[in-house]
């Protein structure tokens, strides 16, 4: 559950909060800092393997996960680790 597979380079895993608008990626893991939050995100379909597209980064982060549009605060997006997809 740690972030051991952080590798540098174009294919590296990054927190969703660091992605730019329009970026796409696949969720690798949701960090287990707070089990309540993980439960809620999981229930909304934010699970490893899901495809995400960042739609907006200010004032909050809005992203499309599969077919669900979600708005979250920055600290939540920081715990969602994503492997960006090349365009």
């Amino acid at each position, binding site marked *: 559950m740690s972030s051991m597979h952080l590798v540098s380079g174009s294919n590296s895993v990054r927190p969703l909060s660091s992605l730019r608008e329009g970026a796409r990626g696949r969720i690798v893991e949701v960090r287990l800092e707070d089990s309540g*939050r993980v*439960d*809620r995100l999981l*229930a*909304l379909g934010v*699970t490893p*393997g899901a495809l995400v597209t960042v739609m907006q980064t200010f004032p909050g982060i*809005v992203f499309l996960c*599969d077919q669900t*549009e979600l708005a979250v605060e920055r600290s939540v997006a920081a715990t969602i680790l994503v492997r960006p997809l090349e365009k």
Partner: protein
Amino acid sequence: MPCHLIHERAATAPRTLTLRARPLRIALVGQPNVGKSVVFGRLTGRYVTVSNYPGTTVAVTKGRSVVGAEVCDIVDTPGVNALDGTISEDERITRDVIASDNADLIVQIADARNIRRALMLTSQLAVFDKPMVLALNMIDEAWSRGVSIDAAALSAELGIPVVEMVAVEGRGLSELRDALASTARPDVPAHPHANDRAVWAHTLAERVRRTSTFSLAHVQEALAAATRRPVTGIPIFVAVLYALYLFVGVFGAQILVKLFEDDVFGRGINPASVWLVDHFIPVPLIRDFLVGQYGLITMGVTYSVAIVLPVVATFFLMFGFLEDSGYIPRLAIFCDRIFRVMGLNGKAVLPMVLGLGCDTMATMTTRILGTPKERLIAILLLALGIPCSAQLATIMGILGGISFAALATLFAVVLGQMFIVGWLAARVLTGDRSEFILELPPIRWPRLGNLLTKTRLRIWWYLGEAVPLFLVGTALLFVLDRIGALVVIAAAGRPIVTGLLGLPAETAQILVMGFLRRDYGAAGLFQLAHSGQLSGVQAVVALTVMTLFVPCVANFLMMVRERGLKTGLAILAVITPVAIFTGGGLNHVLHALGVRF
């Protein structure tokens, strides 16, 4: 529709519909905002409020329906994202229904687009080991966004009937009724861990779902983006408020109220009832009771129907439109940071905006919030600062006629007071704030049928709820006046009313009535202002105090029901002095500055 599968299974599995001691209970369960209440309405013919945001239904509703040859009870439940782990209060309500014998049979309603999430819930429902049907609702929206699902394959994988529906149009409903006769217990491996469940749902969804990148919903998607981006979203918000002001504040509160108060009641109903009463009722006491200064007709009915009803009706119509469009949850993105200071998160915008319709209902909607502390703060702020539709009516009616600055002053003071109280409450109360995670519904063009039904039912509800209280209040005033108590109240209230607040002495009785229902008190102010007895500053001060009061007896009872008597009384004890002293402070500041409006 995988008919052959269902028939095969029907032959082997025992049919669930047989003679029984009580009606079979069918629970409609599913994620928020997937259309459970629409299906409920279609099955039972009973309307429950349908809107386009998660959390419209926060309580259980029951209704009857004939399925096949027998009468069944249909149970509508609040939406659930999960049934285990960290769940909110409304989700707990649903879990209790499923676990109890209120659910002999479960119909899972799913948003066809979000089949992966739906399957995660299916897996949790399977643990209860009850016969199930899976209904893929909004299949038309899924198609228009390039998502299609192999229902037959899904049915085979899950071992339960799967039907495709467009519930708002009634499509797929007869298939659902048929499927209810051949339900089966789902054949799904147990996944105690949420992660395994997610992997299973993901794999299965990939197998039965085809997605393409095309979308026919470009207009909706562009609108959705425009409403949540600050550059376009803030002008849109201002435009929405302005439209609300024009439709409710000008058309409803001024044009329609004038029509009703002056023409329909002033020239029609009131003179006619005075004439009738004078001619047919010989007892002066009863005459006064009906058409006197505190008469049931001349005051009670006039206030509730002529002054409040037109504004409430226009507000409900506009509000229903906003609810069904999916716009309201998008405001949460802008509010999140401000709400954080008050110990809440952006999600609290839902109960707050709903409070503009009815604070009592909104108090119930706070169930969607994550923690007890958040619920308490939201309930407190609703009672303190959010004017309900009926009160908004009188505010707009009085201050709209004075000046825009008067209206702006009232809202600035009330919002400022909410902010201060919220900030203090966030620091004084123990407990946590939950993080902001909110699902945004798609932007949709509201359906006229739903809009009209909803508005009509809300108007009936208002008439049933508010008018009797207005009449009781008027009767009480009449009695108080007769026994001379009004004079005593006015004298007792003098230091506060005329001294601190700088209002005419008659306002004391109106403030007392404001305790019963603050819009009733406000309607009294409306008449006082209308007859030229209130200056601009007095109107603003009086309405500010009234707005900050606890909304009505019903709201107080709801607070007690949701949070207990102690908390209810504590909220009352906080709000009343805050209301009076804010009014006093405002009065002195306005006088010191020499403001006139």
